[in-house]
């Protein structure tokens, strides 16, 4: 497949750029060198080529100028079947179009590109500096594996070797025989660790059974051990008690010895000791008390004998007490009476004065002046009510006067008011004025629109009526004209180009004929025919003549004919070319004539159409229009103008209607008010008139109300006057009736008088009472005195009272002393009797006590008591010892116990004790052991729990197994995949080795200009190894033997060989190389160009460079190479 042209219609920075590679040259190399400095767009062109073949990439970065939906790459593609124009656009599907813009259904590239995908094509059919360098390196990496080298070079995959090693390494990371650390080992360890972890926390069923058994066995053993321990402990305790009892036994025996001599003493009751002490103290106390009592009694009897009492005075004590109150009042009245009498005189004078003032004359009985409380209350109420009543009356009078003043305005009659209100409402609801204003604005707008629409028709300047008369051409007519003009213009342009092309071709062919004719030596077929005719004639002549001359002539013509034939054969292709050129010239001339005729025909058609248009425009008086496209513009303007004219007429009509409505309203209001003014002013005046009328009506209503109010107030006042007069006329206040103030003042005097009369009455009652008191006191005193046989005459009652009181007090004191002494005597007598009783009992007690202990008297008693106490203490100690013994040996028979203890052998006992203690310790240890076993089992069972810990570990182990399974499968996949790949490479090598080795050998020798003579293989580490042969021997590809640059060139040689290997089987797609000579000297560059030229004899080769200096080198190496300057594209 070959690319004849690549059009960058819209791609990257290019717009409508085209790279024309021309047709495949008939012979010579199909090599294209595309020159452009940096940024000229080499990589864009390369990308465009790939995108053209394989589709624009989904996330293309070449959309910075033309967006995705505008991106477009065109190309002319040639293959064995012919040439096709194709277009690639950016779209998800159907992105490849044919010349007619229709999607191409069958991919025309699939066979031309050998079924390669984008990546494979890029790898195999393009070369650049980087891929060459990488390739050189890959040779080093694959050293010893020629299969890899061949495949890598064929597929253009420099990384291939590394990748295969990586696959193997990846597989072996999981598992490798005898490797120390692998993923598999790590996973296995994890599995083991989890198993251990689970074993630590989990309890399995067998273990559970074992624990149950252990728990039961432990419990049983524990019970047995505890029983044994108890028995041993009991035996030990018995022996220990016996030992202890023996200790108490000797003590017990000692006490018995001490008690023996005391047994004859009597048994004394407890506390006898204290009793004896008490008896001795009591005897002393009783004797002392008896002597004291006798003395006291004697003293009191002497005192009472000496005492004397005033019995007469004592008998009058109660009578005197009844006079105490009268005596007190007598004292007070003696001070008060003179003052009361003065007060009475003064008050009487005052009352007389006041009553005279009130009644106007002296009054006999002042009490007649006092008013009853009812009358006084009524008078006061009336007097208090008066100021408010009076004020209300005055206010009502003032308001009535004001209302009368206010109601004096004029009023409208009902009909007139109704008419005015109706007119005002009509004005207020009407929008006539507003409409008129709005309509005026609209009219102005339409007028402006109309004027500009008419202006748009310029230079045409008729009026609207005339405009109506002009008929527009129909749409069909207009488009017919336009199409006719467009078509004829296109036809003329195309045909003119065709004619020019044909003329040029004719000229070219003419020139070719000229030069080819010149190059063909002498003969054309006519000349040969005439020569042959002449030769045949000479032969005929020679047969006739058969002489030397005729023979010479025939021989010469025979040789000429042979020479001409030979020359003709030699120039056969030139001759045929010449014939073809003649034929092409004839065709070009014919084409030129045909094209010229098409131009003329089209010109005639155009003139015809133009004359139609001209006629129409003249009829319409539109001579200013020169272009057919202006016709429709002008008629569009015409219909706009007509439309605006209609709109203006409508607006004016609306405006007039609104003005008329407003005028009729104004006339109506003006008539009603009889005033001539503007409509708003009339409306205002109407409102004022209606408001004034409303106010006057309200005032009239108010006046009536006030008059009624005034009358009510006056009748209130009159009622008050009647009551006032009636009440006062019956009293001494009748003369003051006219003045409310005077009445109120008189009432104050009245109240004072009433109070003074009450005070006077009280005073009189008091004075009378004082006299009564004095008389009663004197009578009481006289009676007491006479009872005592004394005379009161001549004595002041108060002095008499005081003397009497002193005598009675003295008599009472003497009487009290006598009573107290008698009481004391009674007490002492009682006490003496009681002492006598107690002493008798005391003596009886002493006698009984002494008898109980066998003592003679109180002094010898303590000695006897002490001996008895000593015996008691010894008996207690003996009892304690006996109890201690019985506690140890059991039972309650102390005698039996003593006897049994006495029979014991002490040395045997010590030995028994020791062995019993040992038995107890042993039993204890056994019990503890059993307890521990039981408890451990119990705890283990308790700790099992229903948690998920064990299940979780099982889950984790399962997941590790899954991971092992997955990794194991991956390991095998990679391992087996690597094995198939290695074998496949071996087979690949076998089938391609000879062809590629030969091609690469030649190319490498050429590139290195003979430094290396050839390539060969020899058995190596991994298979067959590639060796480069120099004059001095074989050279391996390693760093020591070969420079990096040379290795890169070796890789290039292999790639060139791979290309030829591919081309031998199938027509190759275009090959692209991008400036691969950076590291090449000019000599190597030149020979490499030759190699590219060689490749270009098989397929299309495109070489990008920015080195202009390569041009002469390339032209020398490949004379037929075509040079395209990329700078012309932009």
């Amino acid at each position, binding site marked *: 497949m070959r690319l004849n042209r690549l059009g960058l219609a819209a791609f990257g920075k290019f717009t409508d750029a085209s790279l024309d590679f021309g047709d495949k040259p008939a012979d010579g190399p199909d090599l294209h060198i595309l020159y452009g400095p940096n940024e000229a767009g080499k990589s864009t062109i390369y990308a465009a080529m790939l995108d053209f073949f394989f589709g624009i990439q*989904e996330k293309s970065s070449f959309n910075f100028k033309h967006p995705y939906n505008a991106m477009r790459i065109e190309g002319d593609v040639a293959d064995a079947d012919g040439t096709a124009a194709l277009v690639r656009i950016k779209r998800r599907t159907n992105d490849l179009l044919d010349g007619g813009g229709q999607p191409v259904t069958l991919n025309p590239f699939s066979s031309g590109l050998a079924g390669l995908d984008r990546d*494979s094509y890029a790898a195999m059919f393009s070369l650049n500096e980087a891929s060459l360098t990488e390739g050189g390196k890959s040779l080093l990496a694959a050293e010893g594996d020629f299969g890899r080298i061949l495949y890598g070079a064929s597929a253009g995959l420099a990384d291939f070797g590394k990748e295969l090693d990586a696959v193997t390494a990846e597989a072996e990371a999981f598992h490798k025989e005898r490797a120390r650390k692998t993923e598999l080992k790590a996973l296995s360890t994890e599995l083991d660790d989890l198993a251990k972890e689970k074993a630590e926390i989990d309890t399995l069923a067998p273990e559970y059974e074992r624990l149950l058994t252990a728990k039961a066995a432990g419990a049983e053993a524990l019970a047995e051990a505890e029983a044994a321990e108890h028995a041993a402990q009991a035996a030990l305790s018995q022996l220990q008690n016996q030992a202890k009892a023996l200790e108490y036994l000797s003590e017990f025996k000692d006490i018995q010895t001490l008690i023996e001599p005391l047994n004859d003493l009597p048994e004394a009751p407890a506390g006898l000791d204290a009793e004896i002490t008490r008896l001795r103290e009591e005897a002393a106390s009783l004797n002392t008390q008896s002597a004291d009592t006798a003395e006291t009694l004697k003293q009191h009897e002497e005192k009472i004998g000496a005492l004397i009492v005033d019995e007469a005075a004592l008998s009058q004590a109660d009578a005197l007490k009844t006079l105490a109150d009268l005596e007190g009042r007598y004292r007070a009245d003696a001070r008060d009476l003179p003052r009361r009498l003065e007060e009475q005189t003064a008050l009487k004078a005052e009352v007389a004065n006041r009553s005279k003032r009130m009644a106007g004359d002296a009054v006999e009985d002042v009490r007649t002046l006092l008013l009853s409380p009812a009358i006084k209350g009524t008078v006061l109420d009336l007097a208090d009510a008066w100021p408010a009543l009076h004020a209300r009356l005055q206010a009502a009078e003032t308001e009535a006067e004001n209302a009368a003043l206010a109601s004096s305005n004029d009023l409208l009659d009902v009909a007139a008011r109704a008419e005015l209100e109706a007119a005002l409402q009509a004005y207020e609801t009407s929008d006539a004025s507003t409409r008129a204003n709005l309509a005026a604005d609209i009219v102005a707008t339409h007028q402006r629109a109309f004027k500009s629409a008419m202006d748009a028709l310029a230079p045409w300047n008729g009026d609207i009526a005339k405009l109506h008369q002009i008929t527009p051409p129909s749409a069909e007519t207009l488009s017919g004209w336009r199409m006719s003009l467009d078509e004829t213009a296109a036809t003329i342009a195309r045909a003119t180009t065709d004619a020019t092309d044909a003329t040029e071709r004719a000229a070219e062919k003419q020139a070719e004929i000229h030069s080819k004719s010149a190059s063909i030596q002498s003969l054309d077929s006519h000349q040969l025919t005439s020569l042959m005719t002449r030769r045949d004639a000479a032969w005929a002549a020679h047969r006739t003549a058969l002489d030397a001359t005729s023979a010479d002539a025939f021989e010469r013509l025979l040789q000429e004919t042979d020479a001409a034939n030979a020359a003709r054969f030699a120039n056969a292709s030139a001759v045929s070319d010449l014939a073809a050129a003649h034929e092409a010239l004839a065709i070009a001339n014919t084409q030129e004539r045909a094209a010229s005729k098409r131009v003329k025909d089209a010109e005639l058609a155009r003139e015809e159409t133009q004359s139609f248009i001209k006629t129409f425009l003249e009829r319409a008086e539109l001579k200013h229009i020169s272009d057919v496209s202006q016709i429709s513009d002008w008629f569009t303007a015409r219909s706009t103008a007509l439309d605006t004219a209609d709109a203006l007429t409508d607006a004016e009509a609306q405006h007039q209607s609104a003005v008329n409505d407003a005028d009729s309203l104004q006339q109506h209001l003006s008539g009603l008010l009889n005033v001539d003014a503007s409509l708003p002013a009339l409306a205002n005046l109407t409102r004022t008139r209606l408001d004034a009328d409303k106010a006057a009506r309200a005032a009239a209503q108010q006046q009536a109300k006030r008059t009624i109010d005034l009358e009510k107030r006056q009748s209130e006042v009159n009622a008050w006057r009647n009551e006032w007069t009636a009440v006062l006329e019956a009293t001494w206040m009748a003369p003051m009736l006219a003045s409310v103030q005077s009445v109120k003042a008189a009432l104050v005097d009245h109240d004072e008088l009433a109070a003074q009369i009450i005070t006077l009455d009280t005073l009189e009652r008091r004075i009378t009472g004082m006299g009564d008191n004095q008389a009663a006191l004197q009578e009481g005193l006289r009676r007491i005195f006479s009872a005592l046989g004394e005379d009161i005459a001549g004595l002041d009652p108060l002095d008499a009272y005081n003397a009497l009181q002193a005598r009675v007090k003295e008599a009472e004191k003497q009487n009290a002393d006598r009573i107290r002494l008698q009481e004391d005597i009674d007490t002492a007598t009682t006490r003496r009797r009681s002492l006598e009783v107690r002493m008798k009992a005391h003596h009886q007690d002493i006698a009984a006590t002494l008898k109980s202990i066998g003592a003679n008297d109180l002094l010898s008693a303590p000695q006897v008591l002490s001996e008895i106490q000593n015996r008691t203490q010894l008996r207690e100690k003996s009892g304690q010892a006996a109890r201690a013994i019985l506690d140890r040996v059991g039972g309650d028979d102390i005698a039996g116990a003593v006897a049994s203890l006495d029979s014991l052998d002490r040395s045997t006992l010590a030995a028994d004790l020791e062995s019993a203690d040992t038995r107890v310790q042993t039993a204890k240890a056994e019990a503890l052991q059993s307890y521990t076993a039981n408890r451990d089992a119990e705890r283990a069972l308790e700790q*099992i729990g229903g948690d998920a810990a064990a299940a979780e570990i099982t889950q984790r182990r399962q997941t590790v197994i*899954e991971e*092992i399974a997955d990794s194991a*499968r991956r390991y095998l*996949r990679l391992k087996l995949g690597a094995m198939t790949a290695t074998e496949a490479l071996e087979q690949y090598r076998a089938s391609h080795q000879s062809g590629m080795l030969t091609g690469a050998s030649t190319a490498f020798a050429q590139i290195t200009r003979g430094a290396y003579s050839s390539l060969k293989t020899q058995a190596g580490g991994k298979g067959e190894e590639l060796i480069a042969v120099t004059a001095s021997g074989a050279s391996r590809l390693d760093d020591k033997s070969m420079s990096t640059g040379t290795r890169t060139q070796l890789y290039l040689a292999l790639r060139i060989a791979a290309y030829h290997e591919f081309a031998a089987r199938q027509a190759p797609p275009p090959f692209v190389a991008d400036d691969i000579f950076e590291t090449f000297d000019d000599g190597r560059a030149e020979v490499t160009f030759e190699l590219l030229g060689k490749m270009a004899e098989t397929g299309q080769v495109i070489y990008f460079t920015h080195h202009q200096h390569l041009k002469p080198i390339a032209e020398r190496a490949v004379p037929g190479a075509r040079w395209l300057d990329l700078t012309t594209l932009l």
Partner: protein
Amino acid sequence: MPFRFVHTADIHLDSPLKSLALRDPDLAALVDAATRQTFERIVDLCLNEDVDALLIAGDLYDGDQTSMKTAAFLGSQMRKLSDAGVRVCLIRGNHDAKSRITKQLDLPESVKTYSTRTAEILHIPSHDGAPVIAIHGISFPAGQVPNSLLPRFDGPVGDSVNIGMLHTSPDGAEGHDVYAPVAIADLAAHGFDYWALGHIHKRQVHRKTPAIVMPGIPQGRHVNEAGAKSVTLVTVHDDRQISLEERYVSVAEFARPALNISGIDSWRNVRQAIDLELNTLESAKQSDHVIARILLTGATSLAWRLRRDADLLQEEARAAASDVWIEGLEIACTAPQSASTTDAGAVAELARLMAGIAASPDFLDRAVDEANALIRALPREARDVLGDDPAAVAAVAAELAHAGSDEVLARLAVPAVEAD
């Protein structure tokens, strides 16, 4: 008042899930002890629905289960039911018969474990007008029972609604199938009203009248037990009619979607197709989580790249749905026809050569040798991950040889390109 019970089987308590997805510690934490969580949900369902009984038709544990923690957990759940007055009827399946913890179980009195010798009957008297119920059942005496256990059942109890519990391989061939095979027709003819079966992990309602129900495993444990799993809630109405409801209880469900990506030629669009599939799985799920193994099929120009970068694709796809976890991504895509048949390049030639080698008998022998060498290096518990007999290992080796050849070729065929 109807009699209601929950019917389940094949709990396989505390047996692990088998999935590579659990390497993700987040997922591992979420589906932690999944069979336990599921069993707790079943118990909760019984309590929430206030049912009368829970019927477990065998295989409460895995056969090699010996952890007493499992037994203790089961005991606590049974006590929960007992406290709420829910009876439990338990028959032993083939796994239970093998399990050693079965013997040590300490279960409350309300749990009826059926005898292995003869089919016992549990009579449940009527309460609040409910029908009288007779629950028949028999336990597996051993791990394998080659003959039908149906003849050991009595006939239906008159006046009672009869429910039979049987761990069995339904319609299995007697003599060949060692899990108490029985014909569904024979069960139907026995005269019972409901057959509560167990053993098969896929739910199937064999008949509606009489109801013959295989409830399936309530929590799938690997991708071969894919789909939503459930228990059956059964209501015996007062008129003795029986209605069934399926209730989903699983914590996680497995899914194995196959995605045909024919004609999708951009990496991003493949991603989108996978995302869409994952979202569909997420919205259709009945469990808390979905563990998916995705199979990509179809002809696409990305076939090689997908194969080479499958791990990358899986990593990218992971984020698409929060409750869907990817266990694996299997690439079974092919390159488009036009390219593979007419390809003339070196890559195509190598591909043809490799395919030929991978298929050759000689190479397959070597592949089996490689596989056996690997198996010898595997830990004991993982020895059968490549197959448990020589024929299976050979088949796996052949499959891996082809897959490996494709995978390695994918890595050797095209220059590495960064993912877009």
